[in-house]
Every structure is written in C-alpha cells, then in structure tokens.
C-alpha cells in the first residue's frame, strides 16, 4: 500500500478498478484492537468463569496477572468500541432494505443468496452483531468497574455489588454467543470477509454479491440490477 492508501476511505476503487476498498486502514486497525483485546478478555474471563478453564489464565501469566490486566485491557476494548461507534454508527442504522433482507435471512443461512434483496455496506446480521457488542461493552464497563472497585461500593448499597456480578456474567455470555457467530462467518463461512478486514479490499464480484447497494453507491455501476 502506498502512503495515499492510508488515508483512503472505504469505497475507493483500487488496482485499476478490479478491487474495492471495503475497510480503510484506520477501520482495520481499530477492528483488530477490538478483536485482539476481546480475545484476551474472553480467555481470561473464561478462566475466572470456570475452574475447568482456569488454565487459560496460566497461559497469560497466571491468575493474579490475568486479574490485574483484565480490567485495563477491558478499558482499551471499551475505547476501541467507542471509536468504532464513531466510525460506523451511521452505517449501522437499520434501513428498510435491511428489514426486507431480514425476512429472507433463512435463505442467507442456507446459502441461497440469489433470493436475497440487495443491501448496503453492512447486512442486518452484521448490524445486530455491532449493536450487541456496543451495548454489551457498555454493560460490561459499568458492571466491570463495580467488580474492580467492589469495596468502593458502600455496604449500604451492596445490592450494586451483587448486581455487578450477574450483569457482568450475563453480558459476557451474550457477547460470547455473538462472537462465536461473528468469527465463524468472518473466517469460514463468508469467503473474502477475512481478507477484507485484514487487507481492506474485496473484489467487485464480492461487493456486488454481498452488498449490492453499497457496490452501486461506491462505483456508480447499476448494471447488476435486474
């Protein structure tokens, strides 16, 4: 990538029109800050979740080290998610096209993509994932601060100590479910997705198939319309 590419915004057409930039460098960097910090939080968190998974804390330097870093890494993840919100919130609003797409989500699951209506830069499922993680991290941050400074919560407000436990665990489990689906779809299921979040680019055909409204918007090419 040349220097100009660093500042390039999503939707730019590269390589003489062959490839389309789906995620700018800044978007990719942020995605991977969020992704790697989440994986750290997931593994250390699972260590605190079950004795049978405590060995996960050992690979990160042991229980005390995992406990020490978990909240700090959590703050990094939170900042990354807020940054992601700033970049993507506009693109993540549910549109009428998404609602039409949602009706056909069964076809999407069965890989009968020809039956799907066209959608923009993100599909309905991706948007759901984004909002689950966004609200998830807000709940995790609030409850996590309560767990971090549990003795700072006065005894007279001890129900907040008890609430922090259950909110943190509940929100974690919901994000874990969403994360499993996200990783599966991003790596194994939707081919081309993983390279797009690593190198930024997708082929014209990929954009046309998965995100036709976005493809038409960024290229001005409406010939795919039937």
């Amino acid at each position, binding site marked *: 990538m040349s220097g100009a590419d660093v500042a390039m915004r999503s939707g730019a057409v590269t390589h003489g029109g062959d490839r389309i930039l789906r995620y700018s460098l800044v978007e990719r960097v942020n995605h991977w800050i969020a992704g790697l910090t989440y994986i750290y939080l997931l593994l250390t968190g699972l260590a605190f979740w*079950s004795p049978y998974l405590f060995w996960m804390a050992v690979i990160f330097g042991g229980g005390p080290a995992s406990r020490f870093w978990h909240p700090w890494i959590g703050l990094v993840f939170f900042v990354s998610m807020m940054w992601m919100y700033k970049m993507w919130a506009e693109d993540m609003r549910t549109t009428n096209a998404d609602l039409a797409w949602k009706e056909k989500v069964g076809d999407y699951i069965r890989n009968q993509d020809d039956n799907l209506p066209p959608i923009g830069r993100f599909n309905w499922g991706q948007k759901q994932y984004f909002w689950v993680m966004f609200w998830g991290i807000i709940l995790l941050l609030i409850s996590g601060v309560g767990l971090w400074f549990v003795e700072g919560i006065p005894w007279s407000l001890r129900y907040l100590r008890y609430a922090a436990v259950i909110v943190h665990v*509940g929100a974690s489990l919901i994000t874990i479910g969403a994360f499993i689906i996200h990783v*599966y779809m991003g790596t194994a299921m939707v081919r081309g997705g*993983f390279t797009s979040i690593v190198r930024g680019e997708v082929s014209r055909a990929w954009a046309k198939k998965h995100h036709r409204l976005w493809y038409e918007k960024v290229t001005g090419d409406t010939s795919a319309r039937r």
Partner: protein
Amino acid sequence: MSQATLEIKRMSGHAGAAPGAGASRDYDVCKVIDTTTCIGCKACEVACLEWNGYPFTPTLFDNTYQTMPETRWNYWNLIKFTEHINDDGNLMWLMRKDGCMHCEEPGCLEACPADAAIVQFANGIVDFQQDHCIGCGYCVSGCPFNIPKFNPETKKVYKCTLCSDRVSQGLEPACIKSCPTGCLHFGSKDDMTALAQKRATQLREHSGHKNAGVYDPAGIGGTHVIYVLHDASNPEAYSGLPKNPTIPWTVRIWKGPLKWIGNLAIAGGIIGVTLHYLRFGPKVVDDDRGKNGDGHERR
C-alpha cells in the same frame, strides 16, 4: 493460613506436657461471643493484631469509641459500638466483636474462582490461602457479612483465620486468650452452642432480657462464630448484623443455573456453527476472472 499439622503426643526432654497434647481436633470448632458481657475493652483487637503481625495503619476517627468504621485487610477483629435505646427509654451500649463468622456454607468460597484460594477445614474454619489468591474480589461480593478486605499493595484479600495456625497446634485463637471478662469462649460447636444457649436462658430468666438468644443463622448453614444477643429478634441493632444472612442470590444464580446455561450455550454455539459449515459450507463468490472473492485462485 497454615494447613493442619501432625499433632504431637509426647516430646523428648520436654518440661511438662507436650504443647497441645490431648487436644481433640476431630470436631467442629466454634467461637462464642457473648455481647452481654463484652465491655468493649478491645483487648481482642490488640491480641489479633499482635498475633497476626500486620502493621497498624492510620484510621478514620468518627467520634465514636469504635477503632475504625469497618474491618480492614490488616484489622480482622473490630468491636462495633452502637448506642441503642431500649423499649423502656433507657440508653444501652451494644458492643459486638465483628469479624469473619466462618460460615458452614461460605459465600466467599462459593464465589471464589481461584484454585484453593479459599479452603474450609474439616473443623469448620474458612481460611484464605493468599498464595493462591488472584485478588479478584469475588469473595467480597459473596460475603453476607462484609468481611473479606483487599490489600491494594499485595493485591490479595485477607480476613480472620480463626487463628487456624494456633488451632492446628491445639491452641485457642488469640482473641479468646485476651478476653478479660470471659465473654469469648472457644471449643466444639456442640459445647459452645450449649454454653451459649445456657447463657441465653439465664438472660431470659434472670435479667429481664426476654428476647435473649443465640445468633447462629441457618441461611448459611450455621456459623462457627456464634453470638449471644440481649435481643436475638433484632440482630440488626448490633451495627447491622444481618437478620437472615444468605449467599447473595445473584452469586447463587451465577454459580448455579447460569453456569450450566452458559456452558451449554457456548458449546451449542460452537457445535451449531460447525454443523452449519458441514451442511451448507461457505459462501464463495466467483468473480469475472474465475477467482474467489478473496482474490485467490479457486482450487
């Protein structure tokens, strides 16, 4: 802090009986705190500090006789002073030695995620093993008595050990040794319960404390520290001693049904996406040049 060690029966060349010889350890231990004969002298506080050897640190003076507002990581034994107005309008001083209750079903142990950081000995003592503590503070959330305290310097949690190191050698806890009025007693749970009940009966029959009774809450399976109270119907009057302490319900849900639901959901998610791949496979885009969407040649 220490594991039970071998009990010495005889010693060579030792003047007198071997320390701890004949001490029976195969029973549940128990401490009785008789609040009706406590004079608030704080000898037990000093003895605790002396025996356990933690530094005394500056504290908050809140214009009461109480040494500090609540127990600390280095101060496990605190007499709580309450000025209480009786039904007959008379002022009465309630003095309750606060500290770990050594629950039969300990909320701290239930909540703790670290292997062997909290142990319950067969004699009922609940003990924190700081070597294994990761400093997460879950025990603080699990305790119904606000007892475990975090040391920010060592990042470990501490509380009363019921002098497990002394008890394992056949000795009484340090606080018991120091009490000048005999309001503290230590022995088997059966003996101490009988002693406490006898004292409560005496109070009811001879001193006008009609509601005198023993505090040994059933919600946590009973405790290995029990109180004699002038008014057992109102333990809250004794600086907020909870009437029906239980392990917090969120902790019970978290460590009970939610653990199963969560584990099944995680396993179900992984199995689900695997089955999806086996059944439907990937979404592959053929572009104009016979390449996959990811730009690699199709195999």
